[in-house]
């Protein structure tokens, strides 16, 4: 008899957990409906594809941020890291000069390598220096940003080789069966991220680390390695985002990636990952990134908000979206 009581309890709970993971999607749907009401152009395929496509950078970066945050860390340097990586990648491409696939591949390799190295640096300082990640990555944020500005001598780093640009352009603007590459890229990154976070020991260890470092240590989790790896994953995600970013405008400026860190963290939190660590929701994060971009899109499409107040409405919408999510939880 007790048996049945316990069982039903468990059933009920599992359902609840799903609701919780679903709630970002609900917020998304509410937003889409709101958007459609505000402007009929909103629901056109091209607009929606545009929005999702350009949420790709933040989504990809935020997948990495999900690892870092689920592991109890924080990375504020991603925006500057993206700018630096983009800058160095373009400089590499420019210096190679030739407009063939090989050059492009080399440039991509450099980008991924550099951003992984930046992530490694963050990870090592955090783990071995035992300094709050907030401070470490704030510091490296300044360092990376300055390096771009210095490389660009205050100006812009632009892809010079026209052939190369045309060769590379489709990576942002092209599509297969109507699905733009950036969307494919971020779905793949999210899927791989989800696979790693949910289906590997490493992912398990990340969450355990974020949940309770002592327990993780006693359980034989190699915490230093795991923590450093989360930052490296973050770095690699930044690198991938840069690969998709560069073909869009073909340049890196001192403003590239400004405030991306804030957007990435926001996407992660909207997606249901707790900032204190111990929970990681990759798909929620991706939805969070799309939500952010949607809100901005709706703001431009709507006609009744003065451009001065766009930020206010945007802020209010995000808070309201979170309240909606909350009430969904509690309603259950």
């Amino acid at each position, binding site marked *: 008899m007790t048996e049945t009581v316990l069982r039903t309890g468990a059933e009920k709970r599992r359902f609840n957990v799903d609701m919780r993971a679903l709630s970002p999607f609900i917020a998304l749907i509410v937003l889409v409906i709101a958007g459609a009401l505000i*402007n009929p*152009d*909103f629901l*056109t395929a*091209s*607009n929606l594809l*545009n929005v999702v496509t*350009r949420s790709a950078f933040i989504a990809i970066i935020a997948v990495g941020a999900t690892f870092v945050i689920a592991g109890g860390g924080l990375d504020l340097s991603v925006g500057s890291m993206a700018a630096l990586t983009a800058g160095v990648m373009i400089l590499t491409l420019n210096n190679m000069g030739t407009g063939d696939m090989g050059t492009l591949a080399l440039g991509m390799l450099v980008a991924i390598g550099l951003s992984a190295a930046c992530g490694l640096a963050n990870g090592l300082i955090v783990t071995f220096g035992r300094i709050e990640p907030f401070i470490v990555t704030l510091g490296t944020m300044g360092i990376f940003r300055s390096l771009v*500005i210095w490389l*660009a*001598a*205050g*100006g*812009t780093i*632009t892809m010079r080789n026209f052939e190369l640009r045309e060769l590379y352009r489709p990576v942002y*603007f092209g599509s297969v069966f109507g699905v733009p590459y950036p969307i494919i890229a971020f779905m793949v990154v999210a899927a791989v991220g989800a696979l790693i976070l949910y289906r590997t020991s490493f992912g398990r260890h990340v969450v355990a680390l974020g949940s309770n470092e002592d327990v993780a240590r006693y359980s034989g989790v190699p915490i230093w390695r795991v923590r450093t790896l989360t930052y490296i994953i973050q770095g690699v995600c930044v690198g991938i985002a840069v690969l998709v970013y560069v073909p*869009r*405008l073909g*340049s890196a*400026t*001192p*403003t*590239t990636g*400004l405030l991306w860190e804030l957007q990435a963290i926001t996407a992660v939190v909207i997606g249901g990952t707790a900032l204190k660590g111990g929970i990681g929701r990759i798909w929620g994060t991706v939805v969070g990134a799309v939500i952010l*971009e949607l809100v*901005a*899109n709706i703001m*431009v*499409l709507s006609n009744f908000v003065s*451009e*001065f107040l*766009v930020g206010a409405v945007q802020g209010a919408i995000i808070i309201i979206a979170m309240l909606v999510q909350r009430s969904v939880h509690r309603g259950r």
Partner: protein
Amino acid sequence: QQKSVTIGVSIPAATHGWTGGVVYHAQETAKQLEKGYPGLKVVVKTSPDGASQANALDDLTSQKVDALVVLPFNSDELTNPMREIKKRGTFVTIVDRGLKDPAIQDIYVAGNNPEFGRVAAKYFVDNLKQGNVVVLRGIPTVVDEERVTNFEKALEGSGIKVLDKQYANWNRDDAFKVMQDYLAKHPKIDAVWASDDDMALGVMEAIRQAKREDIKFVLGGAGMKDMVKKVMDGDKMVPANVSYPPSMISTALGVTAAHFYTNAPMRGTYTLNAELITKDNAKNFYFPNSPF
């Protein structure tokens, strides 16, 4: 005899294309002037916002500079701190954004932001005559506000209608996004005032992606070399530009240094007006070695 003069330079940090250009020109000119005038020392300092700039000014004056060349973030904010510094007898050169109290500035190298808006508007009136334009604004600052209000004022009474205006923060990425959204929202746009070359580049990518034929041209501003090159080459989408050279800081530095090393007093206002760059005069504005 050796004359020892220190000039402090306070400018905004290289946080976007144009200010990046300013920093570059300031550094280059500083090197040249130090070579040209023995005994001259030029100290260049950048600041990320108005309050930091006030701090940097304090710090510069505490190092006993003879003259200050300042490109203020915001003239309202800096009027007071500059007055303090002036009282201590420092020679003051202001660039681009004039202080509220003109008595403070010994030399004023004026950029003319209202004129920047007006010149752009005039180009639209002259070349489009009739039609719909969309506007991309910069970062909410006085500079942006002066440009945009004067642009709109100058359009009044013409057949040109501003469909939409949004902030895109003098940033290519933001401009790209805002333009994508404009394109989704407005079925017919005749031209775009991007108000800045960085933003114009983002706008053009968005247009190219959407393959829209209705847009006749994009007018940027500030004379970035890539854009001037396009004007020179006769690019259909970029028929013109409005100059707003970051090298105005060089002018200011040169005049200030000259004030100390030549006997002629250099006080007064030097206006570098916003000028329309077209295919005809483009080569005068093209500096391939500048980073901007």
